[in-house]
């Protein structure tokens, strides 16, 4: 391998995860940290740690100059960006390479191409990946828009081309709705994003969120099967599974093949995820977007395939070809990941940073807990609320759920609120056990079943 050291430009559980993978490969590890993270587990585990500034992310973890200065000072060969922060910032990827280091991820050009929602959709369509019925790009006026709507049918989403993360979306159910919303959406997009460009997509109702893990080294491309992440609150994933329960084998094959075709069409290098909506009733799947980084939920895939995706990313960045061929990768059993956040599910998911008093982690075959917590650690208020991920593997989904219930009962975090009670309720739910859910399921379930189970008097926002 052409690299012998790596700087971790991230924090929290993923920084710990990357350090462990790097150490397993014999790499020297350098952790950057903000003033709020000086006592973090990642800082303790890394071979070296470098202060990059104040707690506010834009002055530290998002500060390209500060991160690069640390990398130069530590003379590292590569930078792993983790997820969030600078991980999908093409300018950062370019600056890392310009400074003579490897960026652990795809080329800046691939990040740029796939990061533009309208362009990514065109790339997918050219690679033969089904896209949600809608416009081929921006629509210029309401006449053109109305013609598209007449073809695809209601309900439709009017989306801002410059939007993202759920912002700048309006739904129209009728032509009257549409004619009212379209000009408003354009004016709003212009005000909010400085770009009034709109595109149109059909609403896929009661869809599941499925996504395919891909790996590429620029020449060879493989998929590591799919995950299902339909249990979401406010478009944030809460619970993820691998593989997707109830996905027919022929659909799985065409879904995963389409992700590989997309990766090949752009000469992808590194780990990535192609996200789709899946419609149970019609068995159709539709491309949504590509994430050009490691994802939070990658351990679910590792549990069913036996791969170490973060080690694989580091090896690819070090110039090595993929360590596996497609025929080497297969699904064994079922895995579920629960995101444990510092939020109180009984109080509208109010975040609760603070000091962890006790930490008891369940152990056993097929149980993994990725975390940055330790007893006595103070969770700072400045970053996201993810504390850790409980990942459980069983011989099949029922065995996995049974093991998950035991593991959740054995996970004890005191001193701060956590979402463990939410996961206990989900793991005991009949609909969840039957795999009867879609992307809108969890929010309804929170308002009805969970609110009732919590005693009714407590507010669930």
């Amino acid at each position, binding site marked *: 391998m052409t690299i012998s050291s790596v700087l971790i430009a991230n924090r929290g559980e993923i920084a710990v995860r990357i350090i462990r993978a790097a150490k397993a490969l014999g790499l020297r590890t350098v952790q950057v940290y903000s003033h709020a993270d000086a006592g973090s587990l990642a800082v303790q585990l890394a071979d070296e740690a470098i202060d990059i500034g*104040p707690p*506010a992310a834009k002055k530290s973890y998002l500060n390209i100059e500060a991160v690069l200065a640390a990398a130069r000072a530590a003379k590292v060969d590569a930078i792993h960006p983790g997820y969030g922060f600078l991980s999908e910032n093409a300018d950062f990827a370019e600056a890392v390479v310009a400074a003579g280091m490897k960026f652990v991820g795809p080329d800046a050009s691939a990040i740029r191409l796939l990061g533009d929602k309208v362009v990514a959709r065109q790339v997918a369509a050219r690679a033969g990946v089904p896209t949600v019925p809608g416009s081929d790009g921006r629509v210029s006026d309401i006449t053109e828009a109305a013609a598209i709507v007449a073809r695809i049918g209601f309900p439709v989403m009017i989306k801002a081309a410059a939007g993202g993360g759920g912002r700048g979306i309006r739904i129209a159910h009728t032509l009257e709705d549409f004619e009212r919303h379209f000009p408003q959406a354009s004016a709003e997009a212009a005000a909010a994003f400085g770009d009034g460009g709109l595109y149109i997509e059909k609403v896929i109702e009661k869809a599941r969120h499925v996504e395919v893990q891909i790996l590429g080294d620029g020449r060879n491309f493989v998929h590591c099967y799919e995950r299902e992440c339909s249990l979401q609150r406010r478009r944030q994933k809460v619970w993820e599974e691998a593989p997707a329960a109830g996905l027919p084998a022929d659909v799985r094959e065409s879904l995963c093949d389409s992700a590989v075709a997309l990766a090949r069409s752009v000469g992808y290098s590194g780990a990535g995820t192609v996200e789709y909506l899946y419609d149970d009733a019609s068995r159709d799947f539709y491309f949504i977007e590509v994430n050009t980084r490691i994802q939070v939920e990658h351990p679910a895939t590792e549990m069913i395939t036996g791969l170490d995706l973060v080690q694989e990313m580091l090896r690819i960045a070090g110039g090595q070809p993929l360590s596996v061929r497609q025929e080497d990768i297969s699904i064994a059993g079922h895995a579920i990941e629960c995101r444990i956040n510092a939020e109180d599910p009984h109080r509208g998911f109010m975040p609760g*940073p603070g000091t962890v008093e006790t930490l008891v982690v369940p152990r056993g075959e097929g149980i993994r807990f990725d975390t940055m917590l330790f007893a006595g650690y103070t969770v700072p*208020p*400045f*970053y*996201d*609320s993810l504390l850790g991920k409980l990942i459980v593997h069983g011989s099949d989904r029922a065995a996995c759920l049974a093991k998950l219930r035991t593991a959740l009962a054995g996970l004890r975090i005191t001193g701060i609120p956590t979402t463990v009670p939410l996961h206990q309720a989900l793991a005991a739910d009949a609909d969840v056990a039957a795999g009867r859910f879609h992307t809108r399921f969890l929010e309804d379930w929170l308002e009805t079943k969970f609110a009732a189970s919590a005693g009714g008097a407590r507010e669930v926002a």
Partner: protein
Amino acid sequence: MSKAEIKSPLPGMFYRRPSPDSAPFKNDGDAVSAADVIGIVEVMKSFHEVTAGIDGKAIRFLVDDADAVMAGQALAEVEA
């Protein structure tokens, strides 16, 4: 003349403006009523409005825009 402190209900990042390009909610010397929003605390990427909680003739801020604050820290004082 009595003074009262407005304390942060949560730890996090304190913002004096609704968005980076907006005018501040309140300037030093402004009168406030109890229901007025004087700032926002961002905690773990969620945003919580801070209200004055008291009527007063003049407010004076003790922390800057985008300063890190602790729960219970005085954000401003108000002349009643």
